[in-house]
């Protein structure tokens, strides 16, 4: 086991028998039960259509927008079932940040992008907002590149910078969990590297849940890995053993690149 202090880390989120399907029958989750460990990078990987994105969108209830016909089971965040209809979804989404596959910068300045979440939450204090801008940009390794042009439109940044801005933006909300849905799929290797490096540092303070865009990225970043196939959890393991010595035939085939 690579993590010596495994025993002190607790499960941030636990899925219990989650079933999910959409009205058109595509990509669903079948009886998924698994933990997501706090202060670690939890990787969820598998081929397209395996339910990774659906899984990720459970955590901030973004699935509410989709045509979900069936949703059963429990998603326990710190012991509370967030699928409960009485959950305060807005508060939940402040606690659970998300970075999408394509960078989505909002049509406003760099600074506004970063303060957007806090301002929505009612924060007006300029000092607090400015500190949060600098802190979050530093965490996403973007501060040095944009500190002199915070009031420029965010759309003027390069793709890699935009994606780091999106990461910084979700961090500005001071979430507890950061969801990343193939955050580097459209990026060059250098930008990818920067984001992966940021994640290594961020996991000290946050629970990272990452859908990587390749098995290689999964192997590089994972502390805990779950392999999904057609909505089913096939194999779950701590450390990197799933990449070097997978237990399941299907995991082995996928990791070794026999299908994908």
């Amino acid at each position, binding site marked *: 086991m690579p993590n010596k202090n495994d025993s002190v880390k607790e499960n941030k989120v636990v899925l219990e028998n989650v079933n999910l399907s959409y009205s058109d029958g595509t990509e669903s989750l079948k009886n998924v039960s698994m933990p997501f460990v706090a202060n670690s990078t939890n990787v969820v990987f598998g081929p397209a259509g395996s339910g990774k994105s659906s899984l990720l969108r459970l955590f*901030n209830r*973004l699935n509410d*927008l989709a045509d979900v016909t069936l949703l059963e089971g429990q998603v326990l965040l710190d012991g509370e079932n967030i699928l409960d209809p009485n959950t305060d979804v*807005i*508060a939940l*989404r*402040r606690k659970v*940040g*998300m970075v*999408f596959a*394509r960078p*989505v910068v*909002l*049509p*406003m300045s760099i600074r506004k992008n970063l303060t*957007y*979440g806090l301002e*929505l*939450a009612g924060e007006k204090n300029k000092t607090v907002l400015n500190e949060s801008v600098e802190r979050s940009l530093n965490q996403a390794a973007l501060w040095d590149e944009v500190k002199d042009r915070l009031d*420029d*439109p965010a*759309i*003027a940044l390069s793709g890699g910078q935009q994606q780091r801005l*999106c990461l910084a*933006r*979700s961090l500005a*909300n001071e979430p507890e969990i950061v969801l990343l849905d193939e955050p580097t799929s459209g990026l060059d290797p250098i930008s990818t590297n920067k984001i992966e490096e940021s994640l290594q540092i961020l996991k000290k303070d946050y629970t990272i849940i990452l859908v990587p865009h390749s098995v290689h990225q999964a192997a590089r970043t994972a502390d805990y890995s779950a392999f999904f196939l057609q909505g089913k959890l096939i194999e779950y393991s701590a450390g990197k053993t799933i990449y070097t010595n997978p237990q399941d035939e299907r995991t082995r085939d996928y990791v070794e690149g026999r299908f994908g």
Partner: protein
Amino acid sequence: MNKKSTLSWKEYVITRLIKASGYSAIIFVGMILYFLLSQGLPALQEVPLSSLIADRWYPIEDYYGILPLLGGSLVVTIGATLIAVPFGLASAIYIAEIAPRWAREILKPIVEILGGLPSVVLGFLGIMVLSPTLQVWLDLPTGLSAFTGSLLLGGIAIPTIVSVAEDALDAVPRSYREAALALGATHWQTIWTVTLPAARSGVLTAIMLGIARAIGETMTVMMVTGNAPVMPNGPGALFAPVRTMTATIAAEMGEVASGSTHYHVLFFIGIVLFLISLAVNVTASAVIFRQVKRTEKLLS
């Protein structure tokens, strides 16, 4: 080889056709402008400018003051804008962002049918239903007033605004909304702070098209505004009869001697109308283009 040459020949014809239709728009506008100027500018020689910019319109006795008509158009158009913009935008936002899918599929076509209603039908409704009702409700000497005209013109502009603004809102990528929601924005905050600003240029176009529709509308205003060329003074003018520039041209052009002073002055009014809609359009595109240029500059 042979095949390629027919293809390029076809391509030549098609590109030329597209080019020609593009230029024809410019040529037609140019020709309309030339005709307007040639018929309208003599008015400046026949009537001194000080008499044109005066507050009495009584052509039979050679009073050609166009200010009451300009004022009438302004009152009615501003009234219509004040009604149409909030209602139009609110409906567009409802249809694009809030309404369930089945409601959207019913509402959008209905709005488009409303936009295609002939204005004379609306004018008829205005005369028969709206103006008697308003006369009783508001206790006015006559129901044929600028207010009635504003209400109807607002109604005419609303479908234009709704339709164009809804398209613009609908074109905002879903990912923008998801990003805002994922940051903890409520549905309304997402609409107000992300979707609307992202659709800004389209929404602005919608408003400008709506206003242009209201300024240029003739039939309805002629039927319901009472057609009294009185100088509007004060807020009370909203509830008094007025006459717009368009209604004046439509009502008087038929009975005027071709080439007379009156005839030239009517065309001069046409020039003024042309300039107003030009100003509206130039302002609108200046606002939109400035945005585009700024983004382009930054992206290059």
